[in-house]
Structure formats: structure tokens, C-alpha cells
């Protein structure tokens, strides 16, 4: 029974949320904040797979996000809307509602392939040198997009609003919110199952000791490749959602600044704690929104708060524990699998 409580309660929460958004009980601003929270949850928990569970230091997550955002947006605008760049719609706009998950997934796959750019050098490199490679990949992605004039170059790319509108014409629901909710649930579920599976424990083994892991017959190359591709693929999906929430993307969004934001969420929540990532993604997004009236001073106060937090809790909010470890009673309700004593 309790195997389903977490899934059931999450679905119930999402249905309530979507109903509230559909019935205009919460205004558009709050809806957008909620969607950003969802996107940040996907980003931070997927980066936690690399930086927390595998112990690498990836600083280029926004690059993969950009790949996903651009692939999904270009596909959607090309297929479902008539634009000046790509001419008339190839498919009928009403089919967007069915094919949106496919294009979202295509963006994820594209980002996962971009993740290979990092995964392959990671066979030989670790630590700070790998950090530079991820940084370089971030810059390469941003710079290549800036140089592709077909998709707008540095001016950015728009037209995703039309896709969302055509989905809403068929069935009147807040579709971006629906997909954000679905993807957040799927991400957490995939990552949770992955890191708790026997196969996924190889990643934690690599963090603890790579050579020992290899001796214990963990295929380290394969594990690294899986981890990097999974992480960047999820980031790509987050990027696709981000593009459709905003309706406009430009390469300037996906700079090292964005990567830093995600990094902070991961380390704030605690390395190797999935629930920590979720909590810190929610918390940080909310704090950034609350301090918005302070304008520039926001970016002084928030880092200051984070430094103070680091001084008092140098291991992040949850350390490398999960919420169920901190509050064992929760385990009575939420447990996807039995833990061995």
C-alpha cells in the first residue's frame, strides 16, 4: 500500500495545482513561479547525480539546458506553427498536443548526446580538470548557438507561445504546468530508482573510490557515460520546459550564471541528497522571487545569506542524508522500496 502513497499524494497535489491554475484561483505570476520551481527541481536534482552522487564538479549544466531548449523549441516551431523562418506548419497545429512530449524527449536526447562531450573526456580526467571541460562545453554551446543565424543567433528565438496556444485550443488546460508537473515527478522517480538500484550504486562507488569500484567489477566508463547522459538529458528536458514557459529564449540566458545558480542549489541542499536538492530548489527560487523588489541588492543579500548558511551548516541543508533519514517517521508513509537494515 505505502509503495503508492508518495506517487498518489504527488499526483493529487498536481491535480489540485492544475485545477487551481485552470480555475484561475492562482494568478499567472504565481503559476510562473511554480513552474520555475519545478524546472529548478529538475535541474538541481539532475546535477546532483553528477556533483553529489558521482562526486565530480560539473559547472556547465546550463549548456545542456540550452541544447534541450533550442532543440525542443525549434522542432515545435518548425512542426506546429507557421513562422517567417521555417515557413508554414508541417503538421496541423492541433497535433502539437500529442507530439509535445515527443519533441520534449527529443530535446532531452539531444542534450544527452551533448553530454557525451563531457562524458568521454571524463574517462581520463577527474576533479578540477573535468570542471574546466564542463565549463568549456557550456561556452561552446552558447557560442555555437550565437553563431547559428538560422535560429536567431544572439537575438534569441521565439514562437513557442504559439505552440502552447495551439495546445490550449484543443483542450483548455494549462499545458505547460501539466508538463512541468509530469516531468518533475518523472525526474525524481527516475533518479530515486536509479541511485537506489544495485546498478546505480556503482555511481556512489565511483565517488568513494574509483579504482576500488573498478576492481569490484563496476564498469566505470559505462557508469560515467550513463550518469552524464542521464543528467544532461534531464537538464535538456528542463530547458525545453523553460523555453515554453517563457516563450522566448536567447543564448544569454544559458551562461555560467545560470549554471552557478543550479550549482548553489545542489550544494545548498547537500551533496548526494535528492530531497535536499528539491528543498533547496524550492527555497532558493522562492527567496529569489521574494527579494525581487530589492533589485540589485538582491544579488548581494542572497549570496550573503548563503555564505552564512554555509558557515553554520557546512554540509548543506541535509548533508548527504535524505528527508526520510532526518525524520524516520516519514518512512511510514513514503517509501518507494524497503531498505535493508
Amino acid at each position, binding site marked *: 500500500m505505502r509503495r503508492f502513497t508518495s506517487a498518489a499524494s504527488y499526483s493529487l497535489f498536481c491535480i489540485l495545482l492544475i485545477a487551481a491554475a485552470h480555475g484561475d484561483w492562482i494568478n499567472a505570476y504565481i503559476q510562473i513561479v511554480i513552474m520555475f520551481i519545478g524546472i529548478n527541481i529538475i535541474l538541481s536534482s539532475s546535477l546532483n547525480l553528477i556533483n553529489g552522487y558521482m562526486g565530480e564538479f560539473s559547472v556547465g549544466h546550463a549548456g545542456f539546458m540550452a541544447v534541450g531548449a533550442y532543440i525542443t523549441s525549434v522542432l515545435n516551431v518548425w512542426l506546429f506553427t507557421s513562422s517567417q523562418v521555417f515557413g508554414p506548419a508541417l503538421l496541423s497545429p492541433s497535433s502539437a498536443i500529442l507530439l509535445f512530449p515527443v519533441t520534449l524527449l527529443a530535446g532531452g536526447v539531444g542534450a544527452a548526446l551533448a553530454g557525451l562531450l563531457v562524458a568521454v573526456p571524463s574517462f581520463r580526467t577527474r576533479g578540477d*580538470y573535468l570542471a*574546466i571541460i564542463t565549463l568549456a562545453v557550456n561556452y561552446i554551446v552558447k557560442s555555437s548557438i550565437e553563431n547559428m543565424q538560422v535560429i536567431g543567433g544572439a537575438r534569441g528565438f521565439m514562437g513557442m507561445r504559439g505552440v502552447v496556444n495551439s495546445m490550449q485550443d484543443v483542450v483548455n488546460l494549462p499545458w505547460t504546468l501539466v508538463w512541468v508537473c509530469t516531468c518533475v515527478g518523472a525526474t525524481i522517480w527516475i533518479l530515486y530508482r536509479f541511485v537506489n538500484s544495485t546498478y546505480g550504486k556503482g555511481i556512489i562507488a565511483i565517488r568513494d573510490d574509483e579504482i576500488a569500484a573498478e576492481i569490484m567489477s563496476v564498469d566505470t566508463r559505462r557508469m560515467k557515460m550513463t550518469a552524464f547522459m542521464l543528467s544532461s538529458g534531464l537538464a535538456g528536458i528542463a530547458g525545453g520546459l523553460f523555453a515554453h514557459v517563457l516563450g522566448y529564449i536567447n543564448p544569454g540566458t544559458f551562461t555560467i550564471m545560470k549554471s552557478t545558480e543550479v550549482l548553489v542549489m545542489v550544494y545548498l541542499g547537500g551533496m548526494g541528497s535528492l530531497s535536499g536538492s528539491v528543498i533547496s530548489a524550492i527555497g532558493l527560487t522562492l527567496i529569489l522571487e521574494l527579494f525581487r523588489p530589492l533589485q540589485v541588492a538582491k544579488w548581494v543579500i542572497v549570496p550573503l545569506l548563503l555564505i552564512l548558511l*554555509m558557515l553554520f551548516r557546512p554540509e548543506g541543508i541535509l548533508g548527504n542524508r535524505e528527508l526520510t533519514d532526518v525524520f524516520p517517521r516519514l518512512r511510514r508513509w513514503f517509501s518507494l522500496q524497503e531498505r535493508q537494515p
Partner: protein
Amino acid sequence: MELQIFMQNLLNALQWGSFYALIALGYSLVYGVLLLINFAHGDIFMVGAYLGFFIATFLLGQYAFGLPFALDPTFIFIITLLFTMILTAGLGVTIERVAYRPLRRKGASRLYVVITALMCGLILENGNLALLGASRRSFPELLPKTVYDVGGLALSNTKLLVIVTTIVVFVLLETIVRKTKLGMAMRAISYDRMAVPLMGIPIDTVIVFTFVLGSSMAALAGVLFATTYPVLEPYMGALVGWKAFIAAVLGGIGEIRGAFVGGFLLGFVEIFVAAFFPSTLRDLIAFSILLVFLSIKPTGIFGIARATKI
């Protein structure tokens, strides 16, 4: 390409590389001792340039209160350089004391200190933006610009100054690290951090000294940069800082020689890519070269792969 254009580009690359080298040095020094990527370093460079600006304009008497007598601009330049280096070193040490040392004492994971460094950089950047506003400031021209003509090459005195200073600093730092007792202590800490305090070496003093060295070099780079490109803005340190970090890693992080070679190499790549290709492709090609290079030689030019014990 004609030889003359090539030589001119070479000079530009030397100058551009000098800035990268001077900043990369701060990364490498701190990394060598603490294994910490001090991401606030690019912004320390920015603060250095701003401090230089305020000291120079004060000495030039551009404020309501000023010196009762006028000074020679060259003399002002030297004083500005000295005071900026001292003040910026103070800033670097303050950051170390307030943010990094408590974390180190608590035995936090290295990466949390890195995140704290990122946050310090953000505070410096945006604190500057909040205090001084987004308007750009132009650095006063202290050294009268003279352009020498050497065999058809235009060689300005600032360019010469930048390149010569960088080489002097390189020699100086190599001497400090290789020949003095403090330098020996620095190398010892990077070799074995556990054993060094047991030998009676005051580890905190050495760390503070490292930060003083690194930050004053960033200040030097800041003032020289502002003399060459006299436009100051709060985000000037961010991109240059990241690129200098890349230069430090390219050379093999933790090595002073590496920082210099890496800095110049990055300067060459950037200038020559911009000379042959459209300049929008500069970042793309420069970083692709870096990616390929690091895939082939993962520890940088001078870096030594450490043997892993089981």
C-alpha cells in the same frame, strides 16, 4: 599573412596574455596551497581596478577634498599601483579570514568552499553595482601615451610596460616560491597538508601570505588593464576571471610556470583566432581547442598526474 601583421598580432597577444597570466597566477597560487579554486579572484581583479581608479582620481585632485599640491602623473601611477596592491591584498585576506577559514576549520568538503568563493565573487560584483551604479567609469590617463615605431611595428609604452611587468613578476614569484623559506612552506603544504603543521610551520601565516601574493597580483593586473583599456564596469572581472582560470588549468593548476604559459597560450589562441576568423567565433574556437587539448593531456602542460593509491 604578412610578417608585419603577424608580429603586430604577436605583440597584442603578448599583452592580452599578460593579463591572463597575472590573474591566472592568483588562481594557481591559492590552488597550489589550499586545493581551492578561488572563484572570487576575477572579482578581486575588478575591485583592484576600481580601487586604482579611486586612488588615482583622488591623487589627481578630482574630488572636493584633495592633496594641496599637484603630483607628477607618473609618480601618481606608481603610488596608485602600490596602494591598490596593498588594499586589494587586504581584501583577499579578509575574504580568506571571514569566509574560507571558518569552513576549513569545520572540515567542510572542498567543494563547499568553492561555492562560498563563488558567492563572494557575486557579492563583490553586485555590491559594486549596488553601491556605485551601473554607469561605466573611465580610468584617467596617467602615463602619457607614446607609440614607438620599431621596424614598422606600433609599440606603445603601456604595452611594453604590461609585458615587461608580467615577466618581472614571473621571475620574482619563481624566486619567492623556489628560494625563500615561505615559498618552501607553500610547496610543502601543497605536497602534504597533514604533515606540515606537525613540523611547526604556521600554516595560517603561509595561507595568508599566499592570498596576499595572489590578490596583489590581481590588483596589479587590474590597474594595468585599466591603463590599457580605460573603461571600468562591475562585470569586467567575471569573464576575464573565468578565462584566467581556464588559463591556469591549461598550464597545469598549482604551477606558477603553468599559469604564465597557460595565460600566454590563451592570449595567443584568442588573438589569432580573431585575426583569421570572424570574431564571433573566437570563444567557440578557443574553447574547442581547450577541450581537445584537455582530452589529450588531462593535467595541463606542466601538471603532473598524481599516482592514486588504493
